[in-house]
């Protein structure tokens, strides 16, 4: 599914969307950067409550095209500018991580392999 469709369907607040047509392959949820680094499949979207610059660093290395900040977390200005320079879409939701993941599942986002 395209990241723009996901953001529209779930009414996410979008900070940066470099390419609307990028597809995501599954999803990972978590706030431990090393867990995401070690286990997320490349190309998946990432739901987290971490909102600092290192989120972009992890997203770049794992080729994560879309980061969704949950529970109303706002990104730091450094995070927004790094996402802009690294072409990572960045969005947020007032919903908590559990609920937004449920909605992503309803949209049909699935992981091919167990993380």
């Amino acid at each position, binding site marked *: 599914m395209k990241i723009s469709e996901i953001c529209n369907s779930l009414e996410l607040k979008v900070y940066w969307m470099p390419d609307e047509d990028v597809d995501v392959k599954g999803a990972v949820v978590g706030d*431990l*950067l090393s867990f995401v*680094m070690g286990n997320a499949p490349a190309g998946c979207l990432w739901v987290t409550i971490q909102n600092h610059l*290192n989120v*972009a660093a992890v997203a770049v*290395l794992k080729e994560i095209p879309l980061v969704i900040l949950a529970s109303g977390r706002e990104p730091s200005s450094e995070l927004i500018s790094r996402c802009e320079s690294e072409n990572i879409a960045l969005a947020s939701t007032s919903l908590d991580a559990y609920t937004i993941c449920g909605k992503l599942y309803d949209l049909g986002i699935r992981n091919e392999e167990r993380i």
Partner: protein
Amino acid sequence: MSAREPLIVQREVKPLDFLAAGETASEFKELLKSLGIPTDICRRASIVTYEAEMNTVIHGGGGVMSLRLEDDAIIIVAEDQGPGIADLEKAMQEGYSTAPDFVREMGFGAGMGLPNIKKYSDKLEIDTRVGEGTTLRAYIFIKGQREE
């Protein structure tokens, strides 16, 4: 064996500089990609670099990261003159961490750094002395295994 000189890139890592963290990993990844190294290998090398860089930032009091590209292997070296690792066996266990709380709140310090480095490298050497520092060497073999 190769007659070519290996490519070596070195970067300084400052202590507790979380904002710069990840830059070395991104830079190494882009460099390897530009040299035509397969994507999967680039990704593994960048994960190893990032985790080692974070360890240097959090625990090592800063240090030097280097990337060495040989014909058959990528070698990532993280060197610091920090406190050293008192119990290396424990440090290699997933979940064991000595990171301070403020670092954990950022999502680091979950005790997964060294296990991730081990997972994504083909060979790992850690030389550590308490009070003197740590040198970590992670090897990623380019053709899946070392050539003779």
